[in-house]
């Protein structure tokens, strides 16, 4: 095996023991989001873990550099701080507006988050109802537009609707984050064609947010052309969160690599991979 990138065998390629040859990862474009570049395309949420310790181990294993957190009334009985854990891991704490149903609530929560987290980045969630947790499109666009005006870097959780994604981009969002399926459902990507259309039309990063159940869902998102994946429950509620975090990290890398490599076209009939020519006559 030879490295395709180099003119001769690289140090890795000539290493004994049949080690896999990997293309130079430096040739991959950096993941740019909100004017910053990131080493990981996996963003993880911190909700749903059994303990802060479990969360810390899983987030560390995921390799994520952006980690979401929420804002709630102070609970004087709570021990430990999610923000301290995120700081300790050297990750960036991205606040969300989870639990907001109107543009007004989301705006207020975003402003509180800016004060608490000392960042003007916001994962914008404006929910329509608590059964589906689907975004309320009208309130979402309104909140996004006003938060952009207030100087926020807005990352909106949105429906898998290409027109809505375009509207969010037009009002100045730094990314669009369509759901694959309902939050926490683990149903994967229910409408891959819409995700593909969103990717085709987007001039900002597309991050698949919500619905991931297992590693193949995350890989699929990247194969569809998403720039990143945001997931929470699939790791936090797995039997072994740390192990699942490792799997998700590998899945995002694998899916991204496959997308970059360019898959073969699907065909109905077989196409032999071994030439017919030179088949010996043994009859």
């Amino acid at each position, binding site marked *: 095996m030879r490295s395709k990138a180099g003119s001769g065998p690289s140090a890795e390629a000539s290493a004994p023991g049949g080690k896999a040859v990997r293309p130079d990862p430096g040739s991959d474009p950096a993941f740019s989001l909100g004017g910053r570049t990131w080493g990981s395309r996996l963003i993880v949420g911190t909700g749903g873990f059994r303990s802060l310790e479990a969360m810390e181990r899983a987030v560390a294993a995921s390799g994520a550099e952006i980690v979401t957190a929420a804002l709630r009334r102070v609970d004087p009985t709570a021990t430990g701080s999610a923000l301290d854990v995120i700081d300790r891991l050297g990750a960036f704490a991205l606040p*969300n507006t989870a639990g907001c149903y109107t543009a007004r609530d989301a705006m207020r929560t975003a402003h509180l988050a800016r004060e608490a987290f000392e960042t003007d980045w916001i994962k914008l969630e404006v929910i329509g109802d608590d059964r589906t947790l689907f975004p309320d499109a009208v309130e979402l666009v309104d909140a996004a537009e006003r938060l952009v005006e207030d100087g926020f870097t807005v990352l909106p959780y949105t429906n898998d609707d290409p027109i809505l994604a375009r509207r969010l981009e037009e009002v100045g969002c730094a990314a669009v984050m369509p759901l694959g399926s309902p939050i926490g459902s683990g149903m994967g990507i229910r409408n891959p064609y819409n995700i593909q259309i969103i990717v085709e039309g987007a001039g900002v990063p597309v991050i698949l947010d919500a619905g991931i159940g297992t590693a193949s869902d995350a890989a699929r998102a990247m194969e569809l052309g998403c720039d990143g994946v945001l997931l929470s429950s699939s790791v936090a509620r797995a039997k072994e969160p740390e192990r699942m975090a490792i799997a998700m990290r590998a899945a995002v890398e694998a899916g991204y690599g496959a997308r970059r490599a360019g898959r073969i076209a699907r065909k109905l009939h077989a196409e032999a991979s071994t030439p017919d020519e030179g088949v010996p006559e043994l009859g």
Partner: protein
Amino acid sequence: MIVALNGRRAELPDGATVADAVEEAGAGGESRGVAVAVDGEVVRRAVWSKTRLESDQRVEVVRAVQGG
């Protein structure tokens, strides 16, 4: 003076500031990760100890927690 502190009735001394409310809410001593809104408006940390509260105001003291 009575205020609504995180949805509960709370009695604070007359002339109490936002910093006193933060203490009363159980977030005294911390500041990173904590934010305050009085009647829906954010009060910047820098002015917590200078901002006096009035009776019947709604004070929300929030902090960063685990979330998706």
